[in-house]
């Protein structure tokens, strides 16, 4: 894994992106704005499942009407995130919060697929009503917590001096 990161780090296009004055601020700004689009909409979907808000909106309306926008935000977020990683792979390789963010995104994705292919199949039974099944509410709570953690670990990536001691002892970035 390390050799892959080192190989990318030495690529001329990675160096060019890293040395560009405008690339990093531009990519990071688009990353944050697209995060607002994706995470903002997903948060209200999760809160609808939990029963915090939008209770009069049929549950099935949200995936059909809001997910295309949320996925657009996610797509832009993924592209800018990949470019940020591509431009400074060795900065992120040893960063605990980077790996924590990747792991959290993976778990959030699994939760999303599990919900979609298991719990959501019975949506017609609870679409209009206010009583959301426990499984769906749990999936909403898990998703909300996981995406919040993704946002937090994403921000924490800037604090390379605040990584856990046990992680530092592994000397991954050295």
């Amino acid at each position, binding site marked *: 894994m390390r050799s892959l990161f080192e190989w990318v780090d030495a690529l001329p296009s990675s160096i060019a992106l890293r040395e560009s004055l405008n690339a990093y601020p531009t990519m990071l700004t688009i990353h944050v704005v697209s*995060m607002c*689009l994706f*995470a903002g909409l997903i948060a209200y979907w999760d809160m609808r499942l939990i029963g915090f808000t*939008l209770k009069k909106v049929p549950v099935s309306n949200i995936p059909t*009407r809001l997910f295309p926008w949320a996925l657009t935000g996610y797509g832009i977020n993924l592209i800018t995130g990949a470019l940020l990683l591509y431009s400074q792979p060795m900065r992120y390789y040893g960063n605990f919060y980077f790996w924590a963010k990747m792991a959290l995104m993976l778990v959030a994705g699994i939760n999303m697929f599990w919900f979609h292919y298991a719990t959501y199949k019975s949506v017609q039974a609870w679409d209009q009503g206010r009583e959301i099944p426990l499984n769906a509410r749990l999936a909403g709570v898990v998703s909300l917590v996981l995406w919040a953690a993704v946002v937090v670990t994403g921000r924490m990536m800037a604090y390379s001096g605040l990584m856990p001691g046990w992680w530092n002892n592994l000397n991954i970035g050295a």
Partner: protein
Amino acid sequence: MLQSFFVWMQGLPFSAWMLEETWASPIIQCAHLVALVGFAGAVLVVDMRLLGRGLIKTPLNQLARELDRWMIWSFVALFVTGAPQVLSTALKQYYSPFFWWKMQIIVIGLLFNFTIRRRVALAEEGTLGHWPKVVGFLSIGIWTSVSVYARLIGLLS
């Protein structure tokens, strides 16, 4: 006068504590970002509806009423988590053009939201022609600019 106010803020014991306490700034910044997500979602769901997209089967005024409190409380959270950051880096903010642009647009955004946007969102649908679309578009533009300038304070100041 404004400069001396910022110098005073920078010199507060709280500002010194924020800078000295290792975890204070990261925790506040993370909370600010989470509040931003809450705010953006509440704004976007209504703005997209104003644009004729998103939850079109739900009456606009119902959506606007329900999400209004989420937007207000998210904004309060943004303010509560944003103020300590301004206090602890007051002089950096003072000399950053992005900070002033952000503040000006926030004021415009709040005035716009509590006057025009709210009135249009709560009006009977179909009575205002193309105005809801214009308002939705402007609202997205205003709050996107705020996030862009906010990000640029940290990156380019």
